[in-house]
């Protein structure tokens, strides 16, 4: 038997895969073992077959096939806590060659994803900075400086103009869902705008595309009217759902702008291709337009067609700017210092990479 096997091996021209290593897949929720091997140097190999044996059992199961260029296989059909070992079969058109058997490996779920350590450290530093500046803001509120944002200064003027003209204000909080930070930021601004329309008695129109955003927006406006002491002026019909179809929504808003001719249009939140359709129609009705989005590709359209545009993070800063709430302003300060830190890291990293050819990228 041994002789026959040795003869077979001698006759076989196919070299097997070597260095077969089985390891628990790192940073995962378990049930996965990663198998790696050094490929056979034989050009006739067409694929590798991965075989697995459970400890205490005699039979080998084929768990998968990998292409001839593969040297890695993830076996995700294993159970946690059970010991398995593997071998890899190099397959050519006519023959196969078996590798040595790997050491035993056991899969287990991890409690911490080490790959995301840099993200965690970054978030912790960032959180500390923000909390620090929020606390400082509580003590020295008067010292906080925030640069002028023309678009937000214009809010008051725009509302005043609408009131003088006896026309309404249109507020479109983007087309995204509530889990988009831009939408949440837009809700914060809507709250401030609604307080002012409540104060001046200006009609407010808020058409919406997402049903969840609709329910949130309705509550925001209702609360703002109550806070402004004008709960009686709040009308259910101010905030309404239109459709979830992107261009049907754009058509509806265009219709509202051409029929109702609001004096001011706010387009604040997440927008896609409809941004220019909305902004140009609004411009043709002669309205003052204030836009704000973190959709970088839509910014040029808003900048071109609107009177004022909040660019990227200005959108998030808006509620702090409008409400002048020290705690919110403190958070912005923290944000700025974090940006400074990132900038410093980029410069240091670039210098290191250029000067020493260090693999800086690998750290992150």
């Amino acid at each position: 038997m041994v002789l026959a096997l040795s003869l077979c091996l001698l006759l076989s021209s196919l070299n097997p895969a070597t260095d077969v290593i089985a390891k628990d897949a790192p940073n995962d929720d378990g049930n996965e073992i990663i198998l790696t091997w050094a490929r056979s140097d034989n050009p006739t190999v067409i694929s590798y077959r991965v075989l697995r044996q459970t400890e205490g059992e005699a039979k080998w199961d084929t768990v998968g096939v990998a292409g001839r260029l593969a040297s890695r296989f993830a076996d995700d059909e294993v159970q946690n806590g059970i010991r398995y070992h593997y071998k890899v079969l190099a397959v050519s058109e006519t023959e196969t060659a078996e590798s040595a058997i790997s050491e035993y490996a056991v899969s287990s779920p991890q409690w911490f994803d080490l790959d995301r350590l840099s993200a965690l450290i970054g978030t912790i530093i960032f959180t500390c900075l923000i909390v620090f500046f929020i606390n400082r803001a509580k003590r020295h509120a008067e010292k906080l400086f925030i640069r002028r944002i023309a678009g937000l200064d214009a809010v008051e003027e725009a509302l005043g103009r609408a009131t003088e003209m006896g026309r309404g204000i249109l507020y479109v909080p983007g087309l995204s869902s509530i889990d988009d930070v831009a939408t949440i930021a837009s809700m914060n601004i809507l709250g401030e705008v609604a307080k002012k329309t409540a104060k001046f008695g200006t009609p407010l129109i808020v058409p919406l595309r997402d049903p969840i955003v609709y329910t949130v927006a309705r509550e925001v406006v209702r609360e703002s009217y109550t806070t402004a002491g004008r709960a009686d002026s709040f009308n259910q019909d101010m905030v309404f759902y239109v459709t979830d179809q992107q261009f049907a929504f754009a058509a509806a808003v265009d219709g509202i702008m051409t029929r109702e001719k609001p004096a001011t249009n706010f387009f604040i939140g997440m927008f896609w291709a409809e941004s220019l359709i909305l902004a140009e129609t609004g411009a043709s009705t002669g309205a003052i337009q204030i836009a704000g989005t973190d959709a970088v590709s839509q910014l040029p359209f808003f900048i071109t067609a609107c009177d004022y545009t909040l660019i990227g993070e200005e959108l998030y800063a808006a509620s702090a700017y409008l409400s002048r709430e020290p705690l919110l302003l403190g958070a912005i300060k923290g944000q700025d210092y974090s940006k400074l830190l990132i900038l410093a890291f980029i410069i240091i990293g670039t210098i290191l990479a250029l000067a020493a050819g260090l693999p800086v990228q690998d750290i992150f």
Partner: protein
Amino acid sequence: MIVLVLGIFGAAAFIIPHPIVKGIDGTMRNDVLRIITAFSLVLGVGSIIQHHLIKVRRKAEHWPFSYVTLIALVASAIIGLFGGIDPASPGILPTHIGGFSFHMQTLYENVMVPLAATMFALLAFFMASAAYRAFRARNLEATLLLIAAFILMLGAVPLGRMLIRPLPDFAEWILTVPNTAAKRGIMFGIGLGSIATSLKIILGIERGWLGGGGK
């Protein structure tokens, strides 16, 4: 409190791959969100019906259009629910008269698609008018923007290469180098801004979105 717990849990699930945490996170993201969306859709449809019924009742300006919306809403709901999707999978309602079918798929292909494409096509006209109206070399920044836009527009059509051979490559360079650099700058700001906003919400500093007006 709910926001605080769920917010921290959501952030934790990003770094904890353990099945217990992953499982709960998955249920929250998929099942719970789906249920909430379904219920809020009912509220949304209620809102649109109410909005247009009020217009009809008050005979507000252009009120007949509200009838169009309401009829379209009801008709498409009935066809969608009972009329089947296409001739291959008919529903309980007959959705064709002779060779004329008005299945959901037919309506979609012949009403929705052309209407949406028309709205999208309007962009060409609006781009032209916006460019004419607002693209002025008022100051240095605007002039630079104008020149960059010019190069890109010319580089984006085959004519650009015919006129000046390296122009499309230069246009590509503008897109890949200065444009990407500026964009990354904005994206850093957006990234930090969104973490800060999330943090403010989780910590309960920002409550404007709940109607609390920041306090």
